[in-house]
């Protein structure tokens, strides 16, 4: 049976057009980023936070998806497990992307300034956690954890292509189990470090879960985009159809609802208790025309994807699924923008070439990574013992 699959799967190289587009976008983006850093370093640093978290969301979220597949023994997602595996390759580049942030920490985080720290009792009591040394140590450790788990999981998975050794799956199940608690802790503290500490007085205990919901959505939607595009153009294996699309769409739909549930839980408690130190965070996002961005978040991140993915055919139709997953990926950027930029520009939102060049860079690097990886490795995990059943999966 397994030889049969290999016959069906023919490794095709992606057209170099894809690579050129990716490199072009990346180059334009990089140029914009450098110019932006010259023009307004602080604004660029805030955008850099968004870029870092956006790519981390996709990379770590993809690792989470892979881990969940191994742990739950899922079958339907096996034929396109390579896509999140390729996407999590972005983790390798995160240390470079975080570097400008570490040099600009003094501008971004006002809890760093000794004169502010001295006058502020609250910040003094948070100083054992919020200090430069510990912050940098955390960033490095988190990146190391992610990259190590990525290397282990990916290496075992690609090794299986040649050896067809089913024990590698078992090994990866164990590593996935080990990864999960690390994932929960690192993703929570990443959200606290980079987003919550922008306003160090404010705190919300559900914030890590909130960012986790966005993380999974970003990874899932970017994987779905790549899967639909590759499969519709025949780069994946034959036999992946509606049933697989439906499962991806259903998972997206579930996490759209999960995000809304968590976001509303956070809002409801703060609104109800009405404590000044908590409501200030939402009030900052209600100032000037930020109000429209805040209201827009409900529609962009919940209402539109909810109704867009509600019906069964919309999850099966590749065109609609492609549109909705691109929308959700955009919604995650919108969410990160809404979380961070109000701390930089308090009165009104700002969006111009500075922001766009960071977005272009992110899209470019993602395309380039997918192209590079897909030419190096098989687009299908041909050695996975569950592959045949995965292709045969029907609702």
């Amino acid at each position: 049976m397994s030889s049969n699959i290999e016959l069906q799967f023919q490794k095709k190289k992606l057209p170099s057009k894809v690579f050129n587009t990716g490199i072009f976008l990346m180059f334009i983006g990089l140029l914009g980023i450098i110019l932006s850093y010259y023009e307004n370093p602080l604004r660029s640093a805030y955008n850099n936070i968004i870029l870092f978290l956006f790519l981390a969301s996709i990379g770590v979220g993809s690792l989470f998806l892979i881990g969940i597949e191994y742990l739950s023994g899922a079958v339907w997602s096996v034929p396109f497990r390579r896509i999140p595996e390729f996407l999590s390759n972005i983790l390798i580049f995160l240390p470079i992307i975080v570097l400008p942030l570490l040099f600009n920490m003094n501008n971004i985080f006002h809890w760093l300034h000794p004169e502010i720290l001295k006058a502020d009792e609250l910040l003094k009591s948070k100083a054992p956690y919020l200090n430069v040394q510990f912050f940098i140590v955390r960033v490095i450790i988190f990146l190391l954890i992610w990259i190590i788990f990525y290397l282990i999981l990916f290496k075992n998975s690609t090794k299986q292509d040649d050896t067809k050794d089913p024990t590698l799956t078992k090994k990866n199940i164990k590593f996935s189990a080990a990864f999960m608690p690390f994932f929960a802790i690192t993703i929570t503290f990443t959200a606290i470090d980079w987003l919550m500490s922008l306003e160090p007085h404010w705190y919300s205990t559900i914030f890590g879960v909130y960012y986790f919901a966005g993380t999974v959505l970003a990874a899932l939607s970017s994987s779905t985009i790549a899967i639909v595009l590759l499969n519709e153009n025949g780069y994946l294996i034959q036999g992946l159809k509606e049933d697989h699309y439906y499962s991806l769409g259903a998972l997206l739909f579930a996490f759209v609802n999960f995000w809304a549930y968590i976001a509303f839980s956070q809002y409801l408690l703060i609104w109800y208790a009405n404590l000044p130190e908590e409501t200030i965070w939402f009030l900052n996002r209600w100032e000037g025309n930020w109000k429209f961005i805040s209201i827009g978040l409900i529609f962009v991140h919940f209402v539109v994807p909810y109704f867009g993915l509600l019906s069964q055919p919309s999850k099966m139709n590749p065109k609609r699924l492609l549109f909705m997953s691109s929308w959700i990926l955009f919604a995650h950027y919108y969410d990160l923008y809404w979380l961070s930029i109000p701390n930089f520009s308090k009165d009104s939102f700002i969006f111009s070439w500075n922001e766009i060049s960071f977005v272009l860079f992110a899209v470019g690097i993602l395309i380039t990574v997918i192209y590079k990886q897909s030419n190096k490795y098989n687009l299908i995990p041909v050695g996975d013992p569950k592959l045949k059943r995965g292709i045969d999966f029907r609702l």
Partner: protein
Amino acid sequence: MKEKILYGYAGIFNTADDVIKAAKKVKSNGYEKFDVHTPYPVHGMPKAMSLKPSKLGYFALIFGLTGALSALLLTYWISAYDYPLVIGGKPFFSFPAYIPVIFEVTVLSASIATVITMLFIFFKFPNNAHPLNDTDYMKKVSSDKYGIVILASDEKFEESSVEQFFKSVNASEIFPIYFDIEELNANPKILEPKFLLFLLLAGIITSGATYFTLNKLLYMVPFNWMMEQPKLNPQQKSSIFSDGFGMRMPVEGTVARNYLPYAYKNQPEEAEKYLVNPLPVNKSILELGQKKYDIYCSPCHGYYGEGDSRLRGQFPNPPSLHSEKVRTWPDGRIFHVITEGQNIMPSYSTQLTVDERWAIIHYIRALQRSLNAKETDLK
């Protein structure tokens, strides 16, 4: 044995793969009226049977939206129109608080209404019988076998050809299923006029009895005796007194127990002379004194009476209780200060009972001794 009416032909299969293959062939052989029964949902079955997507989802959507809308109206009507109450300083119509309610009602109405719709459309409520119920076939397909039934009402149906077909797809058992004649002729009892009348009567009687009890019976003799007693409730009107009030002022000069008026108003020297602490010094009295001191005195005087107020300079700090002056004051003088107040210190006579004041004085003495211990204390 009575005459038999054929319902359909059944084929039993041993594996899920077999039944899927067979179901595909049933369709391609031109049979339209057939059904597949499996002990668990088998992946790929809707496609193998080429079923159209279920319409049930639309009912769920409609009922869900109806639920959402009615919950919105309900919450609005209750808290903004019919009985507006200020809760937590929020506006009467505060939408975020209603979202959980709306969400719950949406889910509840969608799920209940979908189940009821399913009963009506697919099981043809009030009918609760099915020819497959209680057959050998049903026993098998609800434990470990998979089955297909081709109905006799199908246009292409012909006993021999169906049997032949089942053989060709390797069914392990093939047998006919007959209607249960008694069941076929029985009318569903649930819509019988007698039963409906009974339901109606039961409804009228229970609601009538409830209404009668709560609105009439309670106001009749003798049940109203508990309610209508010859007494006045607080704040009721009364015709007995000329001022029309039911409640009376106490007679002038009345003193409540344990609340004797203070005898030495504005006479600190007299209080010093004549007042003596009536309480013994023991652990329970000192603990009472400490508790009350920590609540009422410590905000300004500090926990140890050093005048180090906890109000961070928002209020002038009082002098220390360890001064020579206070240490030499007799208990009566301190009692006077607590009762009447002094300078900006207000009177604490409403917060502290007489005994509590004396207990506090014992505690203050203990605090003073702790800083200015005598030689004899060390022994």
